[in-house]
């Protein structure tokens, strides 16, 4: 059984590369050869094609797996609208920038501003699911409007900065000012979190919708959701009160 297209990096990236055009828009039905022609930009060497850097093989089934050290690959999955993208290791900055659909599953760490809005734009993710199995740099999910961002490792400062809506699920430790200036977004913290001072504690309860969401994450992505996460209580903080105040931080609590 084929597992879609596999793209193997021919040799390590020695300069930063902008992947923002590679998976933007419709790509899920493109053959390996057609995808090889997708443009990217190298910091020093300028314009290139995906096929210049990767060997692509397999059949188009709406899935692509990228293999190799991609720490210097910036804006991978930017503008994604469809399909399933799996990255075996780390990625650079702004992965899933303004993602609008599909799934982007990053096996390692992500640099700053994963799932965020492009600089100068108001909206980050507007749909889809972005999974970072390692840690994520600052301002992940900044200005996201819809969609789901999940970070299994450490989430840096200002994750979910200025969220308009959407959901961020954080499994690990978090930095400061998570959810700052959020309008309607939901931040779910399964580890320790200190909400910004502009959030107000509301209550401790069991949100039923989290059972659906977390069960789906467990079953679809095999994420380490434990029974205590499903059956447990959550502190609800409303905020950001400096904004609309219709957002929330749901912080799991052992009590």
């Amino acid at each position: 059984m084929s597992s879609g297209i596999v793209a193997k990096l021919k040799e390590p990236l020695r300069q930063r590369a902008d992947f923002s055009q590679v998976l933007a828009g419709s790509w899920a039905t493109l053959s390996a050869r057609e995808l090889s022609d997708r443009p990217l930009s190298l910091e020093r060497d300028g314009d290139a094609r995906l096929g210049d850097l990767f060997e692509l093989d397999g059949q188009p089934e709406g899935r692509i797996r990228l293999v190799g050290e991609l720490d210097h690959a910036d804006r991978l999955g930017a503008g994604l609208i469809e399909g399933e993208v799996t990255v075996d290791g780390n990625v650079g900055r702004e992965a899933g920038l303004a993602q609008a659909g599909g799934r982007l599953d990053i096996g390692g760490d992500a640099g700053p501003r994963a799932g965020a809005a492009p600089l100068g734009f108001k909206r980050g993710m507007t749909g889809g699911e972005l999974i970072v199995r390692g840690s994520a740099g600052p301002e992940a999910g900044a200005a996201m409007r819809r969609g789901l961002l999940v970070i299994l490792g450490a989430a840096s400062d200002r994750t979910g900065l200025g969220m308009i809506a959407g959901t961020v699920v954080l499994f690990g430790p978090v930095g400061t000012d998570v959810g700052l200036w959020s309008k309607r977004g939901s931040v779910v913290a399964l580890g320790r979190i200190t909400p910004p001072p502009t959030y107000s504690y509301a209550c401790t309860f069991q949100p039923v919708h989290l059972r659906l969401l977390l069960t789906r994450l467990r079953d679809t992505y095999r994420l380490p959701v434990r029974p205590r996460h499903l059956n447990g209580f959550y502190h609800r903080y409303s905020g950001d009160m400096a904004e609309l105040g219709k957002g929330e931080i749901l912080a799991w609590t052992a009590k």
Partner: protein
Amino acid sequence: MKIRGVFIEDTFAEAFTMRVARIVITARSYRWVRAAALKLTGFATSVIGCKVEAGIERELPAKETPDGRPGVSILIMTMGKDDLAKRLIERVGQTVLTCPTTACYDGLPDAPDRVGVGSALRFFGDGFQMSKVIAGQRFWRIPVMEGEFLVQEKFGMLKGVGGGNFLILARNADAALEAAEAAADSMAVLPGVILPFPGGVVRSGSKVGSRRIKSMIASTNDAFCPTLRAVTVTALPEGVNSVLEIVVNGVDANSIASAMKTGIDAACRGGVVAISAGNYGGKLGPHHFYLRKIMGGAAE
């Protein structure tokens, strides 16, 4: 045709196309699942007087529900598409939203026809409600004094079948009731069907219209009333002194036929003289369930 000495009449049950939705209710425990389910399916025996026909399809173990809590699936049926949306909003709003710890989900996710339920009930949140899209489906989190009520935005709707039936013609009331209870018990566990009447049994089968009052759309089925044997054109064989009816609705004709077969087989026991069925000459309902065909015999 006879089954264990019970005569199966050469007739058919006439049933109608209805609109059906399947509602899944979950709660902290079966106590509250049942509390909501019983209220939601209350006063929902016949569209003639209740506007809606509803019943519990089956209880769901926690592993079969969307949120991993105990649950129940309910079928709710109306004659028209628009009517189903109205009835769902009324009933879910008044009986599930109000019930502690419950959540309410669509049980027909693959049905292309969708009706808004959560999309209407959300306004109870008075602007404080929040929506979440999970696995492509939108849910509404409506704040309530207890915490939050979670309800799916849209529910699937199918064309179902209502009015499958058979009549148990017995020597006395005890035998009729015993046979009806056995039939209802055997049918209640089957998927895709509900028995909307009390305990699954009807004692007041009806005919279309009235002999005296033109505005009445239904009145007693005098042909099957033992007390009227001497004063009307009776359909009752000799020795029959009590008749009970089993009415079954379902998601499709096959589910009804299968349930009728199970129920009739259970009803064929001592004290039962014959099994018959209610129809209107085949002119009103498009679904005809021939008793002998269902029971594997040949029509005479």
